[in-house]
C-alpha cells in the first residue's frame, strides 16, 4: 500500500538522510532532482531564491504520528525590511502529491501553522512569495512513514456525522495595543480522505474526499485562503497570525471535493 504511495526512489531518501541541515538550498543528488521537478511544475519554472533569514519552516525531525505532523511557516524579515508576505506553499517532496497546500494571505499575516501527513522520510520545502514578486525557499527534513495511507483515526464513524463542523479560536495577548498582531485558529471536522487509504472489505481505495479550499475573512477582508491537497491531516487545522482591522466578525468558509460548502461566522473577541 505504501509502495503505491511512494513517488521517488528509495535512493533519494537515503542520500538526503545521510546529512542534511535545514534551511539550506538544494545540493546535487536524486532528491534534489525530484525537488527541481516538483518546483518547476508547482511554480512554473520561476526561480527560487534562498529564503534563509527571511522565512522559517518548523517541523519535528521525527514525527510522533505520521498522520498528524505539525508544520509552522513564518516570515522572519530583518528589521526595516518593508516587504510583506503574499503566499506560502508547503511541499512534502516524497508524498504522492507533494504540494500539501498553498496559502494566500491578507495583510499582516506572518505565520501559518497546520498539520500534515508525511508518507516517508522526506525533505519538506516552504516557498514564500513576497511583495517583491519573488519566491523564496527553505527546507527541513522529517522522518516519518505511512501518513498518507494510514487508516483514519479511530472513532471515524462517529466523526463522519460531524463533517463540516467548525471551530474558530482567537488567542489573546495581554497588554498589547488593539492593532497588534494576533493569532487565530480555524478547525474543520472532515475526514480528508487522501484517496490512498484502502477499504479492505471492498478492496477499493476510499475515494478522495478533502477540503480543497478554506477561507477566512475579517469583515470583508480576506485574511487567509488555503488551497489544500491530500497531505493535510484529517480535521484540517490552521493557526495563523493576522493584523486586526477593526471588523466585528470573522467569516469562515470551507469547500470540499464533493462540493459541500461549510460556513461559519464568529464575533471578534477583544484583545483584553
Amino acid at each position, binding site marked *: *500500500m*505504501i509502495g503505491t504511495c511512494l513517488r521517488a526512489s528509495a535512493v533519494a531518501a537515503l542520500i538526503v538522510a545521510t546529512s542534511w541541515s535545514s534551511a539550506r538550498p538544494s545540493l546535487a543528488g536524486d532528491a534534489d532532482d525530484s525537488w527541481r521537478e516538483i518546483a518547476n511544475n508547482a511554480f512554473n519554472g520561476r526561480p527560487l531564491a534562498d529564503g534563509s533569514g527571511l522565512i522559517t519552516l*518548523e517541523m*519535528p525531525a*521525527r*514525527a*510522533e*504520528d*505520521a*498522520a*498528524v505532523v*505539525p508544520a*509552522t511557516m513564518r516570515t522572519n524579515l530583518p528589521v526595516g525590511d518593508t516587504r510583506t508576505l503574499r503566499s506560502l506553499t508547503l511541499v512534502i517532496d516524497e508524498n504522492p502529491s507533494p504540494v500539501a497546500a498553498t496559502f494566500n494571505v491578507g495583510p499582516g499575516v506572518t505565520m501559518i*501553522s497546520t*498539520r500534515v501527513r508525511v508518507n516517508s522520510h522526506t525533505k519538506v520545502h516552504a516557498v514564500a512569495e513576497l511583495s517583491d514578486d519573488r519566491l523564496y525557499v527553505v527546507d527541513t527534513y522529517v522522518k*516519518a*512513514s*505511512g*501518513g498518507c*495511507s*494510514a*487508516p*483514519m*483515526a*479511530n*472513532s471515524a464513524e*462517529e466523526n463522519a456525522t460531524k463533517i463540516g463542523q467548525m*471551530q474558530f*479560536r482567537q*488567542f489573546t495577548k495581554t497588554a498589547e495595543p488593539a492593532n497588534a498582531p494576533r*493569532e487565530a485558529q480555524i*478547525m474543520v*471536522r472532515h475526514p480528508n480522505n487522501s484517496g490512498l*487509504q*484502502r*477499504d*479492505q*472489505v471492498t478492496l477499493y481505495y476510499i475515494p478522495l474526499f478533502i477540503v480543497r479550499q478554506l477561507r477566512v475573512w475579517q469583515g470583508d477582508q480576506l485574511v487567509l485562503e488555503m488551497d489544500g491537497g491530500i497531505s493535510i491531516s484529517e*480535521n484540517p487545522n490552521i*493557526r495563523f497570525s493576522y493584523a486586526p482591522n477593526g471588523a466585528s466578525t470573522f467569516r469562515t468558509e470551507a469547500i470540499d471535493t464533493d462540493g459541500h460548502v461549510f460556513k461559519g461566522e464568529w464575533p471578534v473577541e477583544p484583545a483584553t
Partner: protein
Amino acid sequence: MGRKICCDANWASGADETRQMSSLGSRPLRSAAVIPLFIGLLLGTTATPTYSQEVIEPLSVEQIASGIYVHSGEIALMSAANEGAIANVGFVIGDKGVAVIDTGGSVREGRRLLAAIHQITDKPILYVINTHGHPDHVFGNAVFQPPTVFVGSHNLPREMAERGPYYLNSFRSAMGALLDEVKIVPPSVTVDDQMQLDLGHRKLTLTAWRASHSDSDLTVFDESSGVLFAGDLVFLRHIPVLDGSLRGWLKTIDELAKLPAKSVVPGHGPASAPWPAAIDSERDYLERLQSDCLDLIKRGIPLAAASQLAAASEKSHWELFDEYNARNATAAYSELEWE
C-alpha cells in the same frame, strides 16, 4: 536498527530491552520438552516442509489461578529479536475445553503459546478471544484453526480490515521474515455488549467497551476465580498507549474498577496484579495527560509544543515513556481541542 520504524503504529519497532520472566505467583512452567509441530497441518498452503523440522519451545507461562495461565510479555517494542512477544497472552481451561486470550505478536509466538497449552492440557481449544486489534495481540491468530472459534468486539472486524494490511506493511522492517506467515484473522463471533462463553463449569463474561485504549477493546472476566483479563485497558510498568479516546478510556476505567474482580491480567506488565489497585497508576497518568492537555489548549500552546509538555511529570513512573508519551499527547490534544 529501525528502532522507530513506523510512527503511526509504534508498538512496533525494535527496542533491545529484554526482561526475565517475573516469578509472581506459582512456578513458571518451562519444560525442556520440545514439541515439533507439523505446521503444514496448521497453516495449510502457506507452510513449507522445512517448518516441520522447526523446534518449538513452549512459551513460559505462569498459573495465576486454578486453570488460568499467563505469559508475561517483555516491556519492549516489537522486534525480530523478541518475536513480537511483548504483550501478555494467556488461556483459561474449563471442563470442556480451552479459551485462548490473545495470540501474541507473531505466528512464531502463537505457535509457542499453542505448545505451552499442549503441555498442560489436551482439551480442545474452543475459542480464541482477541482483546483488541493491535499487532502484538493478534499476529499469532493464524496458528489456531477451525473448529476453534474467534471472538472479539463488534468493532474488531472493521478495525482489522482497515488497519491489518497497514500493520503488516509497517511492521516489516522491525519484524522481517517473522511477518511472512502472519495473517489477519478476524473474529467470526462478535460481542456487541456482553456475552458469556461456557468452557464447562467455567463461564467467561466478555464485555465490549466504548473507544478507550483502542476502538475494539474487550475484557474477559472469569467469575469462578475473579480474574479479569483487561487487555490493553490496563497497563502496568509499560506506559499506557492511547489509540482510541482519552475521555472514553477514563470512563471505562471507572466502570472496570467496580467489577468484582480479585486480580487483573494487564495487557502489558506482570502476569497478574491485585484489583482494583492495579488501575491506579494508569488512571493517574491518563488524568495527568488530560488535565495537562486541557490546560495547554486553554493557554493556546500549539500542538507541537504541547506534545512535548503534556504529562512530562509522569516520566519517572513508566517504561517506554519516550517512545509513546508525545504520541499520546498528540492524540489527546487532538481529541480535547474540539471540546
